């Protein structure tokens, strides 16, 4: 069942600014659609409007072609998983899963069957008689998933379901949720603030910031073709380097940050101020002797398979450089920072105007 958002806006009476402005999107049947953005961007609000928990101020929401504005949550045929799991502490696991089914006065045998199946699917059969407080965080999360599964709704909404779990469990649950979604053919709308979750799970990603949609695309397209500053900075760790540069000659073919750090353009640029976006792995740091070079190292993080170097250019601008492998480099060491060539160029309204280099061989490798 597809979902269509047409100009969805949310405003509260007492607030001057709307909390969400003109959201348009089309969510395909059976896809995992991630809504991502920093806290306060309105992503949970959007999800709650889709669920019907809060009313839509303006715009139209259609599920499976039917307009759903004003339809109560129970008639939207969807399930929802909350960040806090929203488990009933006085009910055991099986009763928690059965809660909605019982409320709908489903036959007892049917409830039993569905609960058993759902618990089996999330590997909680052994724990069916336990109370939520006797479960670990990951198990509680799975009870919440089982509840969504048991409801048999074809649309599932998840509001930051993994943010209360530790890092390792999060990685594991990410895969489990993705697998469940595929197995059940769910249309899953997943809200998160974590760009890694968006990158690894989504079929399509909606990036929200400043109460507006910034970009809707596949994860790789968002990484490779970020629409603006915000999207470029939000995706990719460590963050992209955004360097302000001036094109001082008309129709220049070169953007210079300083004498060593520059990008050669295929197409000429008009006079003006631009922002050069270079991913940390598209910069090269070369150690130099004495006072030469154009930057000084201020921090080094050796992660094993890669090394993150933070340096300050002589112009005072900080940059991050990622080198493959374990690079021996000291703090306060002088280095020369140069660009490999791939870069994004944003105009003075922070919008992407030119992509330089795009996907390079080291980014996209065909599996053999």
């Amino acid at each position: 069942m597809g979902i269509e958002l047409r100009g969805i806006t949310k405003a509260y009476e007492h607030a001057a600014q709307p909390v969400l402005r003109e959201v348009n999107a089309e969510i395909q049947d059976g896809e995992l659609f991630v809504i991502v953005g920093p806290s306060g961007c309105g992503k949970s609000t959007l999800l709650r409007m889709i669920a019907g928990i809060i009313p839509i101020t303006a715009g139209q929401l259609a599920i499976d072609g039917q307009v759903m504005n004003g339809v109560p949550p129970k008639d939207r045929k969807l399930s929802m998983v909350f960040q806090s799991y929203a488990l009933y502490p006085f009910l055991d696991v099986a009763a928690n899963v059965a809660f909605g089914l019982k409320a709908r006065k489903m036959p007892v045998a049917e409830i039993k069957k569905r609960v058993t199946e759902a618990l089996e699917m999330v590997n909680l059969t052994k724990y069916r008689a336990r109370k939520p407080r006797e479960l670990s965080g990951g198990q509680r999360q799975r009870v919440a998933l089982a509840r969504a599964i048991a409801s048999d709704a074809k649309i599932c909404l998840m509001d930051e379901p993994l943010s209360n779990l530790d890092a390792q469990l999060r990685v594991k649950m990410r895969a489990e949720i993705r697998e469940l979604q595929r197995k059940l053919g769910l249309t899953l709308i997943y809200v998160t603030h974590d760009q890694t979750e968006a990158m690894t799970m989504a079929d399509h990603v909606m990036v929200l910031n400043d109460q507006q949609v910034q970009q809707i695309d596949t994860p790789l397209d968002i990484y490779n073709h970020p629409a603006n500053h915000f999207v470029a900075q939000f995706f990719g760790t460590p963050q992209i380097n955004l360097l302000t540069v001036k094109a001082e000659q008309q129709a220049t073919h070169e953007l210079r940050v300083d004498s060593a750090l520059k990008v050669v353009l295929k197409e000429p640029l008009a006079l003006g101020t631009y922002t050069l976006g270079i991913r940390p792995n598209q910069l090269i740091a070369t150690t130099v002797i004495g006072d030469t070079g154009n930057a000084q190292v201020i921090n080094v993080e050796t992660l094993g398979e890669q090394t993150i170097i933070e340096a300050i250019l002589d112009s005072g601008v900080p940059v991050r450089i990622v080198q493959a492998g374990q690079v021996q480099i000291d703090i306060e060491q002088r280095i020369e920072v140069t660009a490999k060539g791939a870069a994004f160029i944003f105009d003075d309204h922070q919008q992407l105007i030119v992509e330089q280099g795009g996907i390079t061989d080291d980014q996209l490798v065909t599996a053999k």
Partner: protein
Amino acid sequence: MISSLRPSKRRPQPQLTPETGSQVTAGIKNFELKRNDKYYAWLFLGPSLLVLSIFVFYPMLRTFYLSLFLTDNFGRPTVFVGFQNYVNLLATKSYLASLQATGIYVVGVATFTIIVGLLLAAVANQKIKGIEFFRTIFTSTMGVSVSVSAIFWLFMFNPSIGILNKLAVGLHLPVVNWLTDPHWAMVAVIMTSVWMHLGFTFLIFFGALQSVPKTLYDAADVAGTNSRYQFWHITLPMISPTLFFVAVITLISSFKSFGLIDLMTAGGPTNATNLLVYRVYRDAFVDGNYALASTESIVLAVIIALITLIQFKLLAKRVNY
């Protein structure tokens, strides 16, 4: 002690670093502290033990002691009668009537306090404009003393000038002799007592309602339940520990209602509101029968203890989650 801390010869010798050295001394210090702990424990317990002994334990034992005797006008024990006082008491008709009246009063007060308090809390929990004003009003009976509330309820109950009877006339209902009719007198004291308990009960229930996570209702909305279903299947179970707490507190406190009875009915009319505590007071300090009053006190204490015990046993399982 020291020898046990020494590294055993079979294990490899640990390096003697400053850390291991300090661990050894820390161990000895702990040991010394433990011997002193007992003294400290008694020292800290001392003041409260002293106060409790003088004002609670001694009176309790003394009351029990007196209940085994006949006493003179000054409350001094004269003839030892064993448990005869208890046997006589439980055969006294008017005492059994008091027992019954207390039962009706206590159950009435607790039931209506809980129902009305929960209703007010549920109303105050809604997001309505100006609800803060009502929250304050609902809590305000906490700040009114027993005597003040008894007096103004007396005015309201007044058969000729009271507002309740004026309302009754206005609505073409029969006029009620609130405090002189034995049945209505009980209703009147229950109403007053419920009113007095409401502020505190409201506050506790309101707090409990506020602490139920909002997402539980969101989840139930999505699952397709209406608000009545949510009240019975989410709100009530979630606040059941509070419900239990309020039930115990209200029951015990209404068992001890004294000022209210003294000011409004003085146990009358015809002993209709002569509750157990008030009876103890009258027997001891009006009639000077200290042995009887002591016996009644002990019986009352046992009743309260039993009821509390039963409540805990019965409800502990159901409210514990």
